């Protein structure tokens, strides 16, 4: 691990929470799988938070159902690979980083999935200068993070697995089923040692993704990270993120924010869940994902609008444009969904007159 200085914009999880990890390791008496820094129980409490017998407070890293974390940790302990699914803003990457940090003490063995991720990023590449000078040898081989994780018995991470082209995805099959990475050029292989495992994250509702082949899918246990369970939880997340973003964008603090955030989150949740908050009316769901991340951007957008072009108060009209943009992704079908929602739900809701007018104005 590299030594980190305070100037680093963002610290790795294992550095930022080194004290907590050390405290947990010191007091962890349960059996540990080979090459795990902590026992599965300790990993779960590292993610979920709590207080240790000696009084050390472990901050919760993941706020959500306990079940999710338990299944995830158990999966890694059974040597099956773990696939974290979820829409943007459900803390997939965050959970995978902390799992790797707690289990291997190293969250840096990372392959970032993009449409251009080559096979070398998953298997190995060559140092061509070495290759030409000395011929094929281990020294000329450039191992991928996955290969290093196999050799060291650590956790490898693959981000956005579904963005990776299908043929590159499938090179993971051998690694996950045979636990070995053949190097035919050298007539050898790298076998995974105990402790190796893989965490992949993917977004299943996005467009432009490559579905996993069923052969690869079979190698994973899937855990779907849910969206925040309650309105208050989600409002809280949005408020906190909007605060942070607003500060970094130097937006002034505006009045009326809390109310509009609640409204944006309510609209998003109702359309996403297909049912109104009071549970009495069903509504159609649009094609968009309406993730928490989008709600955050709608609110920040509205704040910028209100600050620069409005009267300095965040109003219904400032967020309505953003909501419309997030909801109506398909110009025909979503338009109907949105107008039905506006006419059927928004129109009759107490205290939403201003929002109704703004929405009517827009969808004309």
């Amino acid at each position, binding site marked *: 691990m590299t030594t980190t200085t305070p100037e680093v914009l963002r610290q790795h999880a294992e550095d930022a929470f080194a004290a907590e990890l050390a405290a947990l390791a010191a007091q962890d008496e349960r059996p540990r799988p080979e090459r795990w820094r902590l026992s*599965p*129980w300790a990993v*779960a409490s590292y993610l979920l938070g709590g207080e240790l017998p000696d009084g050390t407070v472990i901050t919760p890293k993941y706020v959500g159902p306990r*079940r999710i974390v*338990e*299944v995830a*940790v*158990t*999966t890694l*302990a*059974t040597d*099956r690979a773990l*696939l974290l*699914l979820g829409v943007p803003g459900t803390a997939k990457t965050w959970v995978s980083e902390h799992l790797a940090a707690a289990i291997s003490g190293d969250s840096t063995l990372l392959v970032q999935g993009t449409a251009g991720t080559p096979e070398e990023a998953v298997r190995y590449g060559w140092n061509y200068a070495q290759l030409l000078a000395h011929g094929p040898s281990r020294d000329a081989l450039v191992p991928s993070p996955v290969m290093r994780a196999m050799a060291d018995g650590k956790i490898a991470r693959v981000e956005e697995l579904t963005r990776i082209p299908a043929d590159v995805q499938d090179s993971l099959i051998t690694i996950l089923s045979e636990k070995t990475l053949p190097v035919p050029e050298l007539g050898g292989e790298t076998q995974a040692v105990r402790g190796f495992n893989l965490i992949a994250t993917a977004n299943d509702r996005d467009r432009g993704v490559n579905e996993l082949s*069923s052969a690869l*899918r*079979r190698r994973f*246990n*899937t*855990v*779907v990270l849910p969206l925040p369970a309650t309105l208050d939880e989600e409002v809280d997340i949005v408020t906190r993120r909007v605060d942070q973003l607003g500060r970094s964008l130097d937006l002034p603090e505006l009045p009326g924010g809390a109310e509009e955030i609640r409204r944006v989150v309510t609209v998003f949740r109702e359309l996403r869940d*297909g049912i109104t908050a009071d549970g009495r*009316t*069903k*509504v*159609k769901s649009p094609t968009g994902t309406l993730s928490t991340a989008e709600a955050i951007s709608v609110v920040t957008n509205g704040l910028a609008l209100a600050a620069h072009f409005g009267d300095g108060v965040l109003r219904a009209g400032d967020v309505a444009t953003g909501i419309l943009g997030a909801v109506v992704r398909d110009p*025909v*079908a979503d*338009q*109907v969904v949105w*107008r*039905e929602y506006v*006419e*059927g739900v928004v129109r009759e809701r107490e205290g939403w007159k201003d929002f109704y007018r703004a929405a*009517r104005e827009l969808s*004309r």
Partner: protein
Amino acid sequence: MSDNDVTLLGIRHHGPGSARAVAAALERLRPDVVLIEGPAEADPIISLAVDKEMVPPVALLAHAVDDPSRAGFWPFASFSPEWVAIRYGLARELPVRFIDLPAAYGFALAAEQAQQAQQAQQAQQAEERLALDPIAVLAEAAGQDDAERWWEDVVEHRTPGADADPLAPFEALAEAMTALREQPPGAPPLTGRRDDLREAYMRQQIRAARRAGHRRIAVVCGAWHVPALSAMPTATADRALLATLPKKAKTEITWVPWTHRRLAQHTGYGAGIESPGWYHHLFSTERDTLARWMTRAAELLRAEDHPVSSAHVIEAVRLAETLAAMRGRPVAGLAETLDAVRSVLCDGSDVALALVQERLVVGEALGEVPSATPTVPLQRDLTRLQRSLRLKPETEARELVLDLRKELDASRSLLLHRLRLLGIGWGTETRSAVNSTGTFRESWQLSWDPEYAVRVVEAAQWGTTIEQAAAGKVVELAAKAAELADLTRLAEHCLVARLPAALPAVMRALADRAALDTDAGQLAEALPALVRALRYGDVRGTDSSALDGVARGLADRICVGLPPACTGLDADGAGAMRTRLDAVHAAVGLLEQGAAAEEPDSLADRWAAALHGLARREPSAGPATGVPGLLRGRAVRLLLDDARLDSAEAGRRMRLVLSTASAPADAAGWIEGFLSGGGALLLHDPQLLELLDDWLTGVSDETFTDVLPLLRRTFSALEAGVRQTVGSRVAAGPFAAAEPGRTAGPGAVRAEPLDADRADAALPTVALLLGLRPAAPAAARPLIPRQPDRGNDR
């Protein structure tokens, strides 16, 4: 346990572990009598439990004779400890008795409490104190926050070893319950009056069994009651307590078939259980419980086209077992199993998991009862109604004409409608030859089929009276209905059969289905039926405000969804849509009739706005890009009829459509839509006729051949008189645009001035015919108030 001749087996109702433990304990005890917590009236029919036609889950159903709606259910599944004990006793020809307070007292107690409002409040307080769940307290003492899980671990998942003492768990549980029920002196009692009475009654029954000479008495009862039954107070004290019981209500009891789904609901014997299917599996599977369960789940998922391999099953079992170890449980419970199924077999999807949950965890098992079972209360209720309504069940068919304004006939109609809902087709509605006009008259063909008696038994699962059962069945049908039209029909049935209890569920299903239905055409078809039902409900005096709300919601959705749905239709589609447009227009008119017309943003306004939108959506490039002319013309006409457009505006629209820029076929369609359902308009407004005439003479020869069939169809649908007059006017030569307000233009054949006096003389009669007050001068458009805003500003 206090007496060595009495062994108390404390259990939790419905638990596979408890059931196994009871079986083992009974084997060891070899009792000479088995006493079971359950309504004492059931003793005479207890022997039916070993009948080979009896298949659990079944339930004991007790009901008050004079009021079948006061009923109680005691369900038994194959894994209920009570059921195991009953079968054990009967198989060895031992006396088996139910020793709980008879249901008759229970009904009387409930009635007594309902009468005394003050006491009811006290009773409620007592109930609240009782709401303390003994198992939750024990679990807390064991350091577990999840009581259900703790109980499963320590009791239900145990498979007793061969050499273990089968009585030990009962002793331990009795001890724990005793500790729980110990109260410091002076503290408020833990039990309510009802519990005290029940326990006193049970003690008396145990004493009676002892007096009868039984020496090895096994008592199967809720664990909570064990301390009260082991510490026997004096018989005199119990007698004194029981003397305070109210008079028995006359009660009957029988077995009815039950389902696992119903077991999962909150009924009768304490709380419902969440996972009857899982418990059944635990009870019926001796070895490899988890692996067999996963295999069943995999089979189920495969049958539903989820690719699940044997490798998946192996991994799921491994994950469930590791999860259990991680959570510190002795074996994998339902929570671990479902987590593993979700993660491995279902690819994390909750949709697929819901299937497993519904089919396996709850299960679909349906019980059966032997034919020798006493009649169900539903049959009794039917007989009572047949007698009071003077309708004899006869096999030969006969006609019955009902006048719904008479109370007896109205009740008869209700009964027949309700029976029909229950699948008992005693009456078939017919069109009477005598007089079928008016909504207050119904004709029925009556014919009783003996097979209906069986249907009555089947219907018993939905309720104990005809009304309850019909309502129950409608609720179930509503939950299953796939089509919007099925639901609107059900709603109609609810109104004619007057089932207000079922209406909310149907309305909910209807609103939900309508919300998710993306086909505006289907919505448009459902609305008129709903509005009809509303009108019908008015005749019968049924409260239909909920229906009104749903109908309005539906109309709102149509207003939003219809314009896009009309885009790019071919000729056939446009024709079908036109019929719907007319039907919806009429329905909206009916809906708005009662409402205050002055409301600024009423439904009629929104509908008019939708029609305006429709009329404006002209095709910009080819017919697929806009609404067909037929529908646009129709929309303009409907707006004109409602006075939401004036004739000058309509003329302008017509001129635009008929101008050379638009396609002649589209224009002809527009004319058809505009003129259908009455062409007198052309006579009243010579400008329109002139426009039409100009256009027609200007159309080129080839195009004329194209549009001729359309125009012919349009004009052949006009009234004969109108057609003739239009013809003669066109023949008479050029139109003058002067005097557009006059009834007859200069081109008319007869241009005599009106005699106002003679016309006025007829007015009162016309007004009377139309049902208007004679004072109203504007009798021409009575129902459609003019709106200040035209609606096109939205």
